[in-house]
């Protein structure tokens, strides 16, 4: 057993810990977005070909909240974007430069994806224009899913390129991409399936809180749908991880090396499987089970994020791109101060809104 983190000094570990913590936050919102677009696209296509189908409350919630989720994913992504540049500067920049157009494309793609999300949830046309229902909405829903998947693909490729310093020269000289490598696709599939239980856990809470005017009947229908989505994702996650381990020895080694993190991740899967199986049986979005499902998913994300770093450290140690802390710089106290103020203010906002809503109808379908 090797401990990738043991070779790092305290300062590097400190920045790496901040990276991991903020990355976990990014992953939560990113996975909600990723899976949400898939759910919405599948629902829109189904509806297109089976117009009589009853309303799909899960897809409605996802569709309603996707713009917010993607904004949160982007905002959350900025912090790991900062810390990755501090700890793995050379590897991250080099990968960005080698991907070039494929990497820079994520920005126009995301802009298009977000406007497509607004189109999918456009309200005024719900009853009026048939053409919108039959063509525009499903097309926009599918486009959103494809565009968001592209962003994920670019991040996966960028990450894997950054882990392969020995290939950089050749990749540059021959304009190679990693898209022909199965690693990229299996890893992307792993992220995609792993996003399903995260989405299910968040959407379940939203429905419990009455999002999109959900009532008890909606919740009963949704409990089955969400449990199926989550369980499929959890099983798929194990299969994808096994497949990735089989083709990528580095991933296998990292998972074995960080036994604790891997154990936490697997325990998270087990917890979530238990919780969702019980939801499936009881057909209620019970509070306890949703807490368990959420904690389980968080544990999986945290464990896998640590394993992900172990894999990166192993790939880069001994090269000129080995992880290292940035030079000491003032301002940490300022950051801590504003982080505390920020958390307090956001908590206040949530409380104020919750109070106001408790007085009136719960969640509007505006926005």
């Amino acid at each position, binding site marked *: 057993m090797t401990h990738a983190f043991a070779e790092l000094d305290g300062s590097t570990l400190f920045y790496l810990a901040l990276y991991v913590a903020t990355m976990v936050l990014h992953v939560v919102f990113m996975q909600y977005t990723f899976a949400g677009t898939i759910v919405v696209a599948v629902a829109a296509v189904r509806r297109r070909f089976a117009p009589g189908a009853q309303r799909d409350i899960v897809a409605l919630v996802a569709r309603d909240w996707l*713009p*917010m989720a993607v*904004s*949160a994913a*982007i*905002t959350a992504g*900025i*912090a790991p*974007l*900062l810390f990755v*540049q*501090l700890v793995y*500067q*050379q590897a991250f*920049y*080099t990968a*960005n*430069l*080698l991907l*070039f157009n494929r*990497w*820079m494309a*994520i*920005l126009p793609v*995301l*802009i298009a994806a*977000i*406007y497509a999300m*607004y189109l999918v949830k456009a309200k005024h046309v719900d009853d009026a224009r048939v053409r919108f229902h039959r063509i525009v909405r499903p097309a926009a829903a599918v486009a959103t899913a494809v565009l968001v998947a592209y962003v994920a693909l670019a991040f996966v490729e960028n990450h894997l390129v950054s882990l392969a310093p020995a290939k*950089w*020269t050749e990749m*540059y*000289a*021959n*304009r190679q991409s990693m898209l022909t490598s199965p690693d990229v696709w299996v890893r992307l599939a792993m992220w995609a399936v792993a996003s399903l239980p995260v989405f299910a856990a968040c959407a379940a809470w939203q429905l419990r809180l009455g999002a999109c005017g959900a009532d008890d009947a909606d919740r009963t229908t949704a409990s089955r749908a969400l449990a199926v989505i989550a369980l499929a994702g959890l099983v798929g996650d194990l299969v994808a991880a096994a497949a990735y381990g089989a083709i990528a020895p580095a991933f296998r080694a990292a998972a074995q090396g960080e036994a604790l993190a891997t154990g936490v991740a697997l325990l998270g899967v087990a917890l979530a499987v238990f919780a969702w199986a019980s939801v499936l049986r009881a057909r209620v979005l019970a509070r306890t089970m949703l807490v368990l499902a959420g904690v389980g998913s968080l544990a999986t994300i945290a464990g896998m994020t640590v394993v992900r770093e172990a894999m990166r450290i192993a790939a880069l140690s001994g090269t000129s791109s080995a992880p290292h802390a*940035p*030079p*000491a*710089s*003032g*301002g940490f106290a*300022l*950051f801590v101060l*504003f*982080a505390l*103020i*920020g958390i307090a*203010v*956001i908590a206040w*906002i*949530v409380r*104020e*809104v919750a109070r*106001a*809503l408790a007085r*009136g*109808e719960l969640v*509007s379908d*505006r*926005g």
Partner: protein
Amino acid sequence: MTEPSDLLPNLYPVNDYGPVMKGLAIGGLGIFHVFLAQFAIGGGFLMWWLEWLGQTGREPLARKLIDSVFRVLILLSFVTGALTGVGMWLTSIQVSAQTIGLMVDSFHWVWATEWIFFWLEIAAGYAFYRYGDRLPGRTRLALLGIYSIAGFGSLFWINGILSWQLTPGAWIANHDVWAGFFNPTFWPSLIFRTIVCGVLAALGAAIVINAMGEFTRAERERLIHRISVFMLPMIAMPLVAAWYLAAMPADSRGWIMGGSMVMTLFVSISAGGSALIGGYAVIALWRQKQYMNGATATLLAAIAFGATGAGEFIREGARKPYSVREVLFSNAITPAQVASLREHGVTAQNPYPLRDEADYPTAQLRKGRLVYRSLCSVCHTISGANALDALMGGWTVDQKRMNVAMLQWTEGFMPPFAGNAEELEALIQYLAWENAGRPPAWRESNDPATISQIKMWLDRAGTLPAPKAQAAFAAEESR
């Protein structure tokens, strides 16, 4: 602290942008980003103020207007504003990874703090957007206040880092993050941008008011007169601009104030456009209480866009030859490295070969291309924007050798040549070969007399950048 000597030349692969100059990429995106972000910040304050007017009964139409403007604000600023912001970052990596790396290393806690402000902005903004219609007045006002202050906060933080690039001030000596942050151009730059935020918000709101169609003519007039207050601070612009210029390094100032035609043109566009908008705001809107229709507002917004664009180009351009003044040249060479690169060469160590090696008939041409890629390509192309073909195609070969050897004398906004004499000759041959249309055969030039002549010019030029090189030379002469 990253010492400049820690940065290696040729650390990163270089992409070819074809006819587009790299600086244009960042400048072009920068215009959109700055325009949208400043509109969003000013818009926040405008909404906040309108909400107050509405709640205190001073402006009965405020509520209706806020709901419409805020929609535009959210759609534009959340989506395009935030993403072009990330885009600026990623583009900076593409244009000069060393520069952004140095910035991130030096100011990471400032950036981390800015990140908190982003969260406040989206939390307050989204809460208002989604639930504003059902929140009590006090909470609405508070949310708009948080949104505005958070937006302004992000401008505050980034302004310190960007102005540091031009005037790092005392940071150079002590590497103290606050000395760098509150640098000599921090305040004029912040005040200038803040004024622009107000102007853009007022113009944007005027467009929305005209487009809404729900207000009567008289109501529109009243609203437009109200929001025009946000344009009045433009009166102070000339003063702030003068302050900014005074705080700038003398050579940068000289360059934009006539030293470079292009830069001077940008300054004129920026100043002329601002004068036009400011004059209209003060005289027509405020004094004469005239009505601004949608077309006028759109036209003024377009002019403001042009002026903002010119302003961003000035900001990017005025730093030359540095990307961080005194610390790092635009081509990612540090002033301290020049002397050693003169000796050992800039092509000696480069993990990234040419992608089209086979196209070059000789090793010398390949070397010349590598020199071009490392030292010139960040500011020039061969035959596109700021093309070397056009700039030196008409020169004699000796003229080329001398002017490139004495690069910082040829134009003070170029860094000193950071390679050895053989590399310089290879570069000249490569440029001539390109100029000749890349013929399949090319004679190697290896006359020792040429090399020693180039050496002499390089020695004469010195390894210091302008204007230090000239000063050192003058001091030498007078001795």
